[in-house]
């Protein structure tokens, strides 16, 4: 796509073409340019591949991220098998991943008042770090964060208590302060009995 001075636009701007909130006039401008410009057409094809690849990855439960109920609803509509656990601060829960689970979800409840973002860290019983996320956004009024994990990764985790700690971050006066901790007593991977 070119702007008024005829320059090709960025990958990000071309990728916007696939989003559901691009204004119609912008989409038409992109189309007009892409039909004239072979290199932008190739770049747009690349953006489409990335869009499609992200969708395929999500469908396969191959991502770890803090998500929203909107994304979980989409996974449910697409038939992805999701197992969810809800935890309050200080809770210890027994958890396990079954062979046919595709995504595991932890609903992490806490008092997030005045906290714009958190860092999350998961440690194995040995103290070794198993996962870390920084600058997880927290909307005002939120009472929980939703962490989605690939079931394959959880199945391969060692058995025993894993500690997840949320700390305040994001230019908050209490940066680094513990917001909540949760213990996942991981019981390993389970197979359903054959009938």
């Amino acid at each position, binding site marked *: 796509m070119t702007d008024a001075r005829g320059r090709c636009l*960025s*990958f*990000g*701007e071309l*990728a*916007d*073409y*696939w*989003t*559901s*909130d691009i204004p119609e006039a912008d*989409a038409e401008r992109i*189309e*007009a340019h*892409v*039909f*004239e410009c*072979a290199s932008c*057409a190739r770049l*747009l*094809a*690349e*953006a*489409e*591949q*990335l*869009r*499609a*690849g*992200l*969708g*395929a*990855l*999500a*469908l*396969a439960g*191959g*991502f*770890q*991220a*803090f*998500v*929203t109920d*909107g*994304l979980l609803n*989409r996974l449910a509509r697409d038939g992805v098998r999701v197992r969810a656990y809800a935890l309050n601060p200080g809770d210890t829960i027994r958890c396990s991943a079954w062979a046919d689970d595709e995504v595991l979800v932890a609903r992490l409840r806490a008092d997030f008042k005045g906290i*714009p973002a958190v860092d999350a860290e998961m440690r194995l019983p040995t103290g070794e770090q198993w996962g870390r*996320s*920084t*600058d*997880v*956004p*927290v*909307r*005002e009024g*939120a009472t929980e964060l939703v962490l989605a994990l690939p079931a394959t990764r959880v199945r391969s985790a060692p058995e025993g208590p894993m500690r997840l700690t949320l700390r305040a971050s994001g230019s908050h006066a209490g940066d680094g302060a513990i917001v909540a901790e949760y213990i996942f007593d991981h019981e390993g991977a389970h197979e359903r009995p054959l009938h």
Partner: protein
Amino acid sequence: MARVTGSGATSLDAFADGSLARAVAGTKPGQAAEAETELYRRFAPRVRLYGLKYLRDRGAADDLAQQVMLIVIERLRAGEVRDPDQVASFILSTSRMVAVGLRRTEARREHLLVRFDSQQDAVSPDEWSIDAARIAPCLAGIAERERTILLLTFYAEKTSDEIGRALGMTAGAVRVCRHRGLASMRTCLETRRRP
């Protein structure tokens, strides 16, 4: 007018779109086969991308590309394209018209006459393959906030406004984050590109 000939598609790379269109204009079937093939090679992928955006179905997008290019070649042969130099614009307007028809009919999956050899199809399966294995580590490597936004945008199909409300960000900040995430993903994918 330059004579458009060549032993294969590559030798026609240097010809402008308008030259190819003029070479086809007013000819009988078979008289300008190489120019027709080159036009198809250049534009069928662009029409297909247009179809993916509006028809949301790969099969329907393939059908659109076939139908549109068939119409364009026939209109060129019949001398009905007023300005061959504007062939790209003509193909886009034809795409818009045909896509409206395809959206209206349930017969989009009906068998179409394949009027072009398979070697003329520039949209090879490999070109459109989705390599989730390459995408997964790249997605895991970007910032948490960007990962969440990419998944919500391209999988859950949420608008910037909806994502902003869910994460406590402005729509503008969501778009900035999305562009940053896309740029990081593209850089990562480039480094992992297959030889």
